[in-house]
C-alpha cells in the first residue's frame, strides 16, 4: 500500500517502558547519531514486511546496548562481541523467527571478531546490521578496528598510526571471503539518497531473513558526532569525504535466485526426550530417608584431592550422586591440572540444604587428601573444627592442624587388598558414610548399578565390598 504519511514506524515500542528515567518517549542517542537513523529504517522495514512479532533482536554492547528499549520485537542483550553467538542460538532454537544481530564496530570487529567470522562461515540464518562509525562511541571515543589512518581518537591522540595500530578493517571484504553468506552489502547514511539505498538494503536483508535464506550482512557507514567531536551535519560530510574512499559502497555478495532456504535440524527442547537420549530416567529418584546427621556434617563443603588416576573425580561424583538421593542440594566441580593422566587433580563437592553459592570449596569443611602434596596444599584451608581424611598408605607425614578432626585411613592399601586399586573411590564413600552418618551402606550399595551403569556385575560387587571396608574401618578404629 502506498504510504500517505511518514511517521514513527510500528517496529518501535509505543512508549519505551523499559527505558530508565522519565523520558520514555525519545531515544538515549546523542543528537544526530547514525544509530537512530538505522533504527528507524529497521523499524519501518519490519512493519512493512509484517515481521515485528516474528523478530528477535540481539542488542550488543556499545551505544546500541539499549536497542531493546525501542524495538517492539523479542530481545536479548548479549555480552560484548557475542551477539552473533547469541543470535546463532536464538535462531537455531527458533528456526521460524527473524533474528537480528545489531552491532557496532568495536563490538563486531574487535572483541567479537571471531564470533562474527564463525557465524558468517556457518551461514547462520541471521541478519547482521553492522554500524561502522569508525570509533568506540559508548566508552568515549577510543580507536576501533575501523578507525581511519591518521584519525584522532582518545587512544590515538596523534592519529592512528598504521605501523603500531594496524590498518582499518574492511569487514564486508572479510565476510565476503566466506562461501556461506547470502548477501553482503556496504551502505552509508551520509545523505538522503544514500539513506534510501540503506533503506533498500535493510529491506532486502530482512526479506531474505523472512524467507530463511541464510546469512545477511549489511555494513552501514554511520556517524558518531560525540566521539568525533563534530556537529551532526559536519559528521555526514566527514563520512562522505573520509570514509567513502576507504570503504567502497556496494554489493559484495548477492546469491540472488541461487540463495536457498537453510533448514537445520530442529533442536530437541523436551526434557523427557533429552533425558532419554542421555540415558537418564526421570522417575529414577530413590529418595532415601535421612538418618541422624550431627550438626557439623549437615552443611558440607568438601575438597577431594590427589593425583590423576586416584579416583578423585569419581569420589566427588559418587558423593554428590548419593547425597542427591537423600534430598540434598549438591554440586560437583572438577579442577584438573594440564596433564591428562598423572597430574594433580582435585574436585569440590557441596552437600547441603538451601542454595549453594560458590561451587568451589575454598574453605572446605572436609578435606579428603589422597596424596602428600594434596595434604600439604590444602590442609591450611580447612575450616577450624572441620574434618580431614587422609590416605595413610601414601602419606608419610603427620598433619599439623590440631583444631580439626583427623582420620588416617589406609585407603590405597585397603583397595589393593580387595584386589583393585581403582575401588579406592568407594572405600572413600564408605568412610565418609561412617564418619558423617549421612549415608547408609545398604543405600550406597543399592545405587552402585546406577553409578556404574554398563559395568560388569563383578565390578559392582567389588565396589560394594569397598564401601563396606571403608565403613567398617572407620567404625572399628575411631
Amino acid at each position, binding site marked *: 500500500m502506498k504510504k500517505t*504519511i511518514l*511517521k514513527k514506524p510500528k517496529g518501535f515500542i509505543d512508549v519505551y517502558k523499559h527505558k530508565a528515567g522519565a523520558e520514555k518517549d*525519545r531515544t538515549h542517542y546523542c543528537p*544526530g547519531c547514525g544509530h*537512530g*537513523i538505522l*533504527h*528507524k529504517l529497521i523499524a519501518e522495514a519490519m512493519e512493512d514486511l509484517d515481521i515485528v512479532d516474528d523478530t528477535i533482536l540481539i542488542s550488543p554492547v556499545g551505544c546500541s546496548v539499549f536497542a531493546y528499549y525501542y524495538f517492539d520485537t523479542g530481545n536479548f542483550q548479549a555480552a560484548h562481541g557475542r551477539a552473533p553467538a547469541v543470535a546463532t542460538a536464538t535462531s537455531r532454537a527458533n528456526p521460524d523467527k527473524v533474528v537480528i544481530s545489531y552491532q557496532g564496530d568495536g563490538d563486531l570487529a574487535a572483541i567479537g571478531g571471531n564470533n562474527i567470522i564463525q557465524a558468517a562461515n556457518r551461514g547462520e540464518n541471521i541478519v547482521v546490521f553492522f554500524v561502522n562509525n569508525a570509533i568506540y562511541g559508548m566508552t568515549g571515543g577510543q580507536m576501533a578496528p575501523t578507525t581511519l589512518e591518521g584519525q584522532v581518537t582518545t587512544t590515538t591522540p596523534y592519529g592512528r598510526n598504521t605501523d603500531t595500530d594496524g590498518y582499518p578493517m574492511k569487514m564486508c571484504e572479510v565476510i565476503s571471503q566466506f562461501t556461506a553468506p547470502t548477501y553482503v552489502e556496504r551502505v552509508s547514511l551520509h545523505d538522503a539518497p544514500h539513506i534510501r539505498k540503506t533503506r533498500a538494503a535493510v529491506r532486502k536483508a530482512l526479506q531474505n531473513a523472512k524467507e530463511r535464506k541464510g546469512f545477511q550482512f549489511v555494513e552501514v557507514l554511520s556517524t558518531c558526532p560525540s566521539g568525533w567531536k563534530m556537529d551532526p551535519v559536519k559528521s555526514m560530510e566527514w563520512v562522505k569525504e573520509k570514509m567513502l574512499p576507504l570503504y567502497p559502497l556496494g554489493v559484495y555478495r548477492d546469491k540472488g535466485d541461487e540463495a536457498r532456504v537453510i533448514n537445520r535440524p530442529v533442536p530437541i527442547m523436551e526434557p523427557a526426550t533429552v533425558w532419554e537420549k542421555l540415558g537418564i530416567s526421570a522417575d529414577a529418584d530413590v529418595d532415601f530417608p535421612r538418618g541422624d546427621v550431627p550438626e557439623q556434617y549437615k552443611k558440607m563443603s568438601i575438597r577431594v584431592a590427589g593425583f590423576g588416576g586416584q579416583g578423585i573425580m569419581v569420589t566427588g561424583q559418587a558423593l554428590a550422586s548419593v547425597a542427591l538421593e537423600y534430598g540434598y542440594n549438591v554440586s560437583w566441580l572438577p579442577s584438573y591440572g594440564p596433564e591428562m593422566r598423572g597430574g594433580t587433580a582435585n574436585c569440590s563437592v557441596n552437600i547441603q540444604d538451601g542454595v549453594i553459592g560458590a561451587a568451589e570449596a575454598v574453605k572446605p569443611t572436609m578435606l579428603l587428601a589422597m596424596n602428600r602434596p594434596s595434604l600439604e596444599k590444602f590442609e591450611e584451608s580447612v575450616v577450624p573444627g572441620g574434618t580431614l581424611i587422609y590416605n595413610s598408605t601414601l602419606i608419610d607425614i603427620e598433619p599439623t592442624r590440631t583444631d580439626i578432626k583427623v582420620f588416617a585411613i589406609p585407603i590405597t592399601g585397603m583397595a589393593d587388598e580387595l584386589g583393585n586399586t581403582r575401588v579406592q573411590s568407594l572405600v572413600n564413600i564408605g568412610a565418609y558414610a561412617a564418619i558423617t552418618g549421612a549415608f547408609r551402606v545398604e543405600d550406597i550399595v543399592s545405587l552402585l548399578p546406577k553409578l556404574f551403569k554398563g559395568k560388569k556385575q563383578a565390578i559392582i560387587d567389588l565396589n560394594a565390598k569397598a564401601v563396606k571396608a571403608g565403613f567398617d574401618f572407620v567404625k572399628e578404629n575411631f
Partner: protein
Amino acid sequence: MADAKYPRSEVNLDKCKGCGLCIAACPKKVLVFSSKLNSKGYHYAEYTGTGCVGCGNCFYNCPEPDAITVYLRNYDPEKEV
C-alpha cells in the same frame, strides 16, 4: 480530494534534539532552526509553513523515531484511521 495543506512536514518540537540533519537534507530549504528552545533546551527544527514537496528526506534523515512526521501529497485526514 487531498487537502491543499499537504504535503507538509511537522516537527514534534519536544522530541527534537536540534541536530539539524533534517534541515540539511531538505531540498526546498523549508525547515529551519527555531529561535526558541524546547523543554530539553534545544533549538528545535520547524517547518516554515510553505514549500514542502513531501520528499520525506527530513523523516528518513532524522534519528529520532518520533520527532518528524511528514504528511504526503495524497494524505487525507478523513481517510486515516
